[in-house]
């Protein structure tokens, strides 16, 4: 055995302990494993609330705009921000589309609705998930399924956007614990945190799926219902606003003057006019030419654009007095022929000169020879107007027909005439058109037939009042929708007839009381503001600002001259007056119908009930041609006289004091018995109008019922789904012990 020093031996014997050095190091490292901690998560949850949400929405949109500019300039943008530009495009696109559609809208209401409904669509898109999915989910499950967070790159994202990846460390332990308490999971139990996360994940996924499934229905439903609900309100607001504006102008002459004065000239039609003017071939034009020019200078074409078709027909009755003649005169004054060679032309034309002496003496035809022609032309300049030439020739006893024939052969320079007409069209006429348009902007909100005029509103309100007063229900509405005009006449008739039938069983006092009650519900007092405004709109001093011609003969001719039957002033007044009468007639219609039915029920008009009813409900007297009017005009007149006898309206007078006088007025002014054209303006299209209104009401109700039900069902299903979300399968009883499965 080899000798080994004890010291060395001892050392070597203890070496076994030292060989586990690495084990010791390892154990030591394990003990200090948790000396390092993971870095703090860079993802941060975004705190929200209604105010911060609104603020953030604006801020985010601003950021999106800035990112868009940056992307265009530098080409640099993260995927997330690039995706967000889509949202910006959506909002901007919606706004631009609304602007475009508004620009092409026929009415102000339609124009405003483009923005309201466009905004409504976007709002529905945003609010549907917020109010009906996120909020209930938050209340039921205790967390925000629309939680946003800001990631490491500073991008704001939806936390639950990608269900496969959820940056959970953005949630603190406390937050998860709180959510766990809400959902009945103990954070501190085994796998507690994981269970809470899974539940949140599932709940969020299910809710987002629900959102996707319902958004396609909810958004269009929401925006459509919004449009339906606000449409009438917008129209009412626009009507009132425009009416007040118009009224204000009419009540303030200076304002009105300024308003009309700053009206932009209307050059519409100038191009077409120029085309016609330039179509003449350098010869004396025919009557057709002047007629074409005359047509292009009319103002009645303004009206169809601004008023209803009915009124445009009326207004188109503005007859230009002698415009064609004036145009021709103007032409002849301004169009010239060259003096050069004219004498020869005159001589060659062999224009026969007529003299009384020749007739007596039987002298042969004498024509103007060249010498004579030269002489008579001597006093004139190089370019001779047609009118001067005509005068000259006439003075030489040349017959008109011969003069016309001769002038037709001449080369005419009408550039001056064309210039004058063009200047007229661009100048005084354009200004006059501008003034007319401006004034129509005042008339329309008051007395127009568009949906946005106060007159239309008044008529609609009156008719709706009838519908409400007479208790028109859905069945009758359905009848009105599906039926013809006859059907609507029968509805009112049936209602009145039934009313009086029911009266039969009642004592007289009650009958009277009921009848009075009916009259009160049927009658609507005149709208004083509207009446006043209409009067002002038709006032001569106001219209005068529009129709002034400043002595321009052409303009005078175009606007109809002083003939109040057909000139612009007269026609404007007539249309306003007609509208007034219409309103009055419709307002009184209920009383008239009630009166007639009462009298028929009392035994009056025996044998002619049909005629009376035909007149009072439908008012289409022309349909009665086969019945009475043509065959027995006197009897017809008697019936009318009896019908519209003011003294037969005592009962109705208690409700409407002036009904007696108004009935007579209606009778006198609007029924012209014996005329070929029987005007039935009193009851103009009452049947079709009320049918239209009732149909619209029916459709609205049916629509609201259908889509309202759909919306309600959608909301109910969405809300009721909430408690079923987030259910996690129970753990397998044998859980983890068995190893991999």
């Amino acid at each position: 055995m080899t000798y080994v020093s004890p010291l060395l031996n001892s050392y070597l014997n203890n070496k076994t302990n030292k060989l586990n050095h690495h084990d010791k190091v390892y154990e030591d490292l394990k003990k200090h494993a948790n000396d390092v901690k993971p870095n703090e998560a860079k993802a941060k949850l975004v705190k929200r609330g209604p105010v911060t949400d609104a603020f953030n929405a604006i801020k985010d949109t601003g950021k999106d705009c800035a990112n868009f500019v940056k992307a265009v300039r530098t080409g640099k943008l993260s995927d997330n921000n690039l995706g967000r530009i889509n949202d910006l495009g959506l909002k901007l696109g919606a706004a631009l589309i609304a602007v475009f559609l508004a620009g092409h809208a026929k009415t102000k209401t339609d124009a405003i609705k483009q923005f309201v409904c466009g905004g409504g669509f976007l709002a529905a898109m945003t609010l549907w998930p917020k109010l009906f999915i996120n909020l209930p989910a938050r209340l039921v499950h205790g967390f925000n399924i629309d939680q946003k967070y800001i990631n490491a790159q500073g991008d704001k994202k939806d936390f639950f956007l990608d269900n496969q990846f959820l940056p959970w460390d953005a949630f603190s332990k406390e937050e998860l614990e709180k959510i766990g308490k809400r959902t009945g999971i103990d954070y501190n139990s085994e796998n507690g945190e994981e269970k809470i996360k899974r539940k949140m994940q599932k709940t969020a996924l299910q809710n987002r799926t629900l959102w996707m499934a319902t958004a396609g229905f909810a958004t269009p439903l929401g925006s459509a219902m919004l449009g339906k609900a606000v449409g009438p309100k917008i129209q009412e607001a626009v009507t009132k606003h425009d009416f007040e504006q118009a009224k204000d102008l009419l009540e303030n002459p200076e304002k009105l003057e300024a308003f009309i004065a700053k009206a932009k000239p209307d050059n519409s039609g100038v191009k077409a006019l120029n085309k016609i003017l330039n179509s003449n071939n350098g010869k004396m034009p025919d009557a057709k030419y002047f007629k074409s020019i005359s047509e292009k200078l009319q103002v009645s074409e303004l009206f169809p654009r601004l008023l209803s078709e009915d009124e445009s027909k009326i207004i188109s009755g503005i007859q230009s007095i002698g415009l064609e003649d004036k145009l021709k005169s103007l032409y002849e004054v301004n169009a010239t022929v060259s003096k050069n060679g004219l004498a020869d032309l005159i001589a060659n034309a062999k224009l026969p000169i007529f003299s009384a002496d020749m007739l007596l003496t039987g002298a042969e035809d004498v024509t103007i020879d060249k010498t004579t022609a030269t002489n008579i032309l001597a006093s004139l300049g190089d370019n001779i107007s047609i009118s001067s030439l005509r005068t000259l020739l006439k003075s030489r006893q040349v017959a008109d027909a011969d003069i016309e024939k001769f002038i037709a052969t001449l080369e005419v320079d009408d550039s001056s005439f064309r210039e004058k007409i063009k200047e007229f069209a661009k100048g005084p006429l354009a200004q006059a058109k501008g003034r007319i348009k401006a004034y129509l902007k005042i008339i329309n909100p008051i007395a127009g037939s568009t949906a946005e005029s106060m007159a239309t509103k008044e008529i609609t309100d009156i008719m709706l009042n009838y519908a409400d007063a007479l208790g028109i229900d859905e069945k009758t509405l359905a009848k009105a929708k599906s039926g013809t005009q006859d059907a609507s006449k029968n509805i009112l008739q049936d209602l009145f007839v039934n009313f009086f039938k029911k009266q039969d069983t009642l004592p007289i006092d009650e009958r009277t009381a009921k009848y009075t009650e009916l009259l009160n519900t049927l009658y609507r007092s005149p709208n004083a503001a509207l009446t006043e405004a209409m009067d002002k709109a038709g006032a001569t001093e106001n219209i005068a600002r529009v129709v002034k011609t400043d002595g321009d003969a052409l303009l005078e001719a175009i606007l109809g001259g002083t003939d109040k039957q057909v000139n612009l002033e007269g026609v404007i007044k007539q249309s306003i007056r007609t509208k007034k009468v219409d309103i009055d007639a419709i307002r009184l219609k209920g009383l008239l119908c009630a009166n007639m039915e009462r009298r028929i029920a009392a035994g009056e008009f025996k044998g002619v009930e049909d005629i009376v009813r035909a007149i009072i409900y439908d008012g289409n007297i022309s349909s009665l041609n086969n019945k009475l009017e043509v065959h027995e005009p006197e009897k017809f007149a008697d019936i009318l006289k009896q019908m519209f006898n003011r003294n037969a309206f005592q009962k109705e007078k208690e409700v409407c004091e002036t009904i007696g006088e108004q009935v007579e007025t209606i009778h006198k002014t609007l029924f012209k018995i014996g005329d070929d054209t029987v005007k039935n303006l009193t009851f103009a299209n009452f049947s079709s109008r009320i049918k239209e209104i009732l149909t619209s009401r029916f459709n609205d109700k049916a629509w609201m019922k259908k889509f309202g039900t759909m919306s309600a069902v959608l909301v109910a299903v969405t809300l009721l789904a909430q408690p079923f979300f987030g259910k996690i399968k129970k753990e397998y009883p044998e859980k983890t012990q068995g190893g991999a499965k």
Partner: protein
Amino acid sequence: MENKILSPILAQTLKINTPKMNNSEPQQAQVVQNQPAVGYSPLLTQAVLAQSKQILPKTTQVVGVTDAHRNVVGYKNDLKDMLVGNKANILAVIPRIMNAQDKDGNELIQGDEIPGNLVNAVERLDEIKDLGFNTQHVLPVHPPGKTKAMGTAGSLYAPALFVEDDGSLAIDPELVDENPPKQARKRIEEIYEKRTGKKLSKMDKNDVNVRFSQFAYYIEECHKRGIRVMLDLPSCASVDFAMAHPEMMAVGPDGKEKVPQGWQDIRMFKPFEDEQTRELNQALLDMHRKYVDACIDLGIDGIRADVGRAKPVEFWNVIIRYSHERDPQFGWLAETYTHEDASPQLNMPYDRPKELLEVGFDSYYGQYHIYNDWTKADQLYDYVKENIDMSNEIGRPKSLIGSFATHDDSSPMLYGGAPWVMFTTILQSMLPQVNPYMTDGVQTGDYYIFPYDHALVRDTQTDNNECVVHTGRMDIFNKSRKPGGKFPEISNVVKTAFSLRDNKYNEVNKNSSVKLEMKNAQDVITKGSFIVLPTNNPEIIAFARHKDGKTLLFIGNRNVNNTVGGKVQIPGLNPEQKFQNLMPNYGEECKFQNQKDGSVVVELGASRACVFEIDNKEIEALSKKNNILQQQYLK
């Protein structure tokens, strides 16, 4: 050479240097090899040696540098320094296909065709070394799981076992060459005998020591050629492993195992015993400790951690530090990309590259694999800046690999063909903070398109008869043909680019008319500043690398389809500077015209990349500060 023990006291007496394990620890007994046991007297020496044999167990827990390291004269593990110093040129290899012999041309190794193994893989090492690769990323070598497997050989990333019962690394028996060549056999037998004390009678693939020996042999051969070996540590386990070791596996609240999204054949580990307190799973930790021990024992130089984020920082804090206790140069590469939510995956924790680098990883993958999406030069520069800033913030140098195409990505050939591969090779060779990286086969233009894609075959080693393949990617599920393509010119570019990085340019490119003047291009590339050069065409990549007055210029065309032209501003450019491309020419022609005003007008063919040595000492001083990036703390 037998193990010799020298007591520290004796060593001190005899004035022999011994490595210190830990300053705070008392001097421990150490194994010192290749040192003659210089004794005061031969008798004493003999006595000490005889005594030590009696005390030490036969299977020695090797401490410090291992046999494999020691057996290669002059070799020293320096992988850590290589990685952080941006000097590693890495090739990713799969031993089971590396040198496979496909006879019938169907690209699937079946029947009597020879698959790749640890011995025949050595035949490729000279070729790999010749190209300039100095590091290998060896994809997992463990026996794959057979249950619910993907592919007919099983996924490399679904190991059935990590560590054998005896503590050695679990190696797939299929990687054993049962009939190695004579020279290899001799060395393997030596290793085997040293390990077991017994003679090797048969290359039995079921013998763990045979597997150990063959792998050790392979590693040794790598080291002989100056190639470091970095082994891939899978982040998850196969179904087989999970069934056998439920204590290590992650389970959801519903009792089901956690499966990483998209990977149905593997199961996730459970890194925490208690996630609330962040107490680590001891069984898992212990297994990984053994794994590190086994790697170091084999001579492996470092680990590439698959899906680094699958385990928390606390875990790596133990394992990485432990590895450095055993081998201070043990390198760590993390598969981690960038930002916490850039690569989301169900059941996977978030990606935190900075965290992993702070806890000890030397290098990470980064996001160069999405370079195809960066169509503008600024996007590249921004990313370079991001990484340099991160490294500087950490306070110790950290690097990336040139992850332009990893085994999880499609072959770069599919994006832009051979020119694109050459472009990215040159680019990643010149970028700061990057260790160039490619997968085996790319150096000759492998498309990784396999005709047997999803075919059903009769013979399978798993429960799956389908040849599952990720089209366009290296096959990690089946025994496929040897990687390689038909574009050897790519290798030429690889070699030239790496030679520049390794200060061997003139030596390697003897026949080139272009000579490199600077002596230390490696320093310029690995430590120099990165200077962005303004251009008027966003598709032109132009930057300079500068250090100590030496400048290399990179100008490339990022467009794979078209020639692009533009002007590059080069502050301080010598009006007489000529532009001679140091890289091989390929594809379409490039033209350079010095405008003599500090700019050069260029016309670059599709996917062309050029590198120039320019005489420009003032470039850094004259460039805008914003355009200059410098990685700090480099040694």
